[in-house]
């Protein structure tokens, strides 16, 4: 079983559209949406929920006002400035529990926090594991880890060849959680100065965690000079550019319709993605695109 995670560094480069297309192209796979705080893959795959599980993670301090004698020690020691006037500001509490351990009157308890849900669903393209982090919650990295673990479990149980994950933007906690230990990172970039800058950083994260990376330049024709520079940037780092996808409004139209691009249009975008998937999956090239 191979695990392919689609990342980008910069947001809005087309990760979810690409994953939607791969969902339709790859034969034997489970899909995972690891962008747990702004998940969009379900809008293309239209899942029907089969299983919903609560995600409990982290803790939040609570002060029992009857026991508190207002000594102020908790306030003084809290590094997250989460205690003011002997009240816990939940949005700032990181759940470390130092206040609970030091409170001389044992007035502080740590309460479990329900931070979201994760789901196993069925789609026309196969099983999908996805999640919804509660608004303004922490621990998105841990929820991503749960989604990946469940996706791998489904793949093993059903003897599927691939786990294909839609990753979050950025390079921090949820990205690291989506990436570490994956077989391949497919990095979707765009030929803008920001895109090039962000690609460099996400390539650095892949290197740091020893995950092989390959690059797909989306909307390559909006600035062909930048595309050329992106290709050079990749070749200097011995990273393959596996696809150059042109800009086509059909991609947005397919999103509005709620279907993967490869099922909406047989234009250049679809042909390029089909070729890309053949290259990634190692299938032989030559036959005409679907």
């Amino acid at each position: 079983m191979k695990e392919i995670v689609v990342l980008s560094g910069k947001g809005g480069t087309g990760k979810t559209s690409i994953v939607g297309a791969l969902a339709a192209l790859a034969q034997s796979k489970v899909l995972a949406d690891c962008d747990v705080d702004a998940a969009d893959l379900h809008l293309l795959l239209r899942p029907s929920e089969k299983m919903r599980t609560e995600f409990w993670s982290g803790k939040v301090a609570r002060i029992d006002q009857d026991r508190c004698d207002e000594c102020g020690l908790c306030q003084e020691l809290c590094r997250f400035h989460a205690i003011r006037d002997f009240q816990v500001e939940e949005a700032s509490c990181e759940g470390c529990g130092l206040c609970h351990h030091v409170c001389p009157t044992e007035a502080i308890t740590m309460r479990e926090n329900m931070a979201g849900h994760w789901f196993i669903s069925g789609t026309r393209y196969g099983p999908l594991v996805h999640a919804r982090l509660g608004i303004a919650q922490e621990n998105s990295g841990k929820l991503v880890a749960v989604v990946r673990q469940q996706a791998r479990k489904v793949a093993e149980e059903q003897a599927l060849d691939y786990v294909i994950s839609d990753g979050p933007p950025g390079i921090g906690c949820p990205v690291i959680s989506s990436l570490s230990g994956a077989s391949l990172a497919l990095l979707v970039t765009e030929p803008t100065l920001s895109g090039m800058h962000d690609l460099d950083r996400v390539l650095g994260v892949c290197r740091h965690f020893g995950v092989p990376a390959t690059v797909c330049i989306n909307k390559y024709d909006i600035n062909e000079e930048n595309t050329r520079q992106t290709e050079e940037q990749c070749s200097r780092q011995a990273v393959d550019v596996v696809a150059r996808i042109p800009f086509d409004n059909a991609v947005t139209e397919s999103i509005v319709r709620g279907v993967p691009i490869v099922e909406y249009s047989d234009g250049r975008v679809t042909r390029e993605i089909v070729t890309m998937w053949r290259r990634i999956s190692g299938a032989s090239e030559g036959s005409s695109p679907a």
Partner: protein
Amino acid sequence: MERVANHDVAGIWKGGWVTGLGQVPVADASVLVAGQVYLTGELLPAMICPVRNVVPEWSGNSMRISIASGKGGTGKTLVATSLALALSDRHHVQLLDCDVEEPNDHVFLRPEITGRETVTIPVPKVNEEKCTHCRKCAEVCAYNAIAVLGNRVLTFPQLCHGCGACSYLCPEKAITEVGHEIGTVEWGRFGGVAFVHGRLTVGEAMAPPVIRKVKERVNNYDIAIVDVPPGTSCPVVEAIKGSDFCILVTEPTPFGLNDLALAVETVQELAVPCGVVLNRAGIGDSRVVDYCSENSIPVLLTIPLDLEIARLYSRGIALVAGMPQWKSSFLELFDMVTELVVERNRSAKR
């Protein structure tokens, strides 16, 4: 004495005097907007008077506007950089890039960097001679960042939140704290814009401490524009906290709409008022606009899908620099935001 031109917005003022009606004290959290001063403090509750001359005394409450989106790549950076540049002719403006995982504002501003600070979090260092391997540190650590295996104590700096529980609670006082570098903050200037950004070190997981360091540099007397990372979780909350207003940038697609609704929930949770900038109008469908009107969220500015705008963006040129005709639109955007903040402060005082 300073004449306040019509259509000029001077921000939120704390203290000072208004002349023109004789000398009228301006109470706390009064707002000067469009040639009028809204006196909302306790001295003169909720009265509006015309004003010609103002003796300003800048301090305290400045205007802080965050630019967020939920979905990535909708145009936060475009809006943040153009808003800052448009305002910089008339106002002191700070631009703070809090998207520390992928900061891009500098690509468009190319500011001269004049200062730099390393961001560290305190992580434990164990004195093996004092340690009795009692395991207390491992028991109290909520993040599994310290473990005791036989006679060895292992620490995992990438997991550590720097809470200090292990060192404070170690009965042998065997744990001290050392700084672990997780990022940098840099600052400088481009024309009239004071610039600050943070950069999370590649391989590090925790953005919020870097964001906190960037925000420590908000000076509280200028207009501060905060570029927020995408998403809805802890880094986003950390960046938006303390804002007077949040501009949500979205695009008219189902992805844009889905993530806009999440972003609206996030800012509501933080009790920060918001409005929408619709970017790439013309692609997709009308559901974002419908959503905004159903939920009484003002659409403050619409930027069309335009090849020229996309080209400027791809070359790292700010919209108002490449197409100066957009400047007035960003000034109007700021006026609308100011009016909404004034309105809200007035109703909050009632």
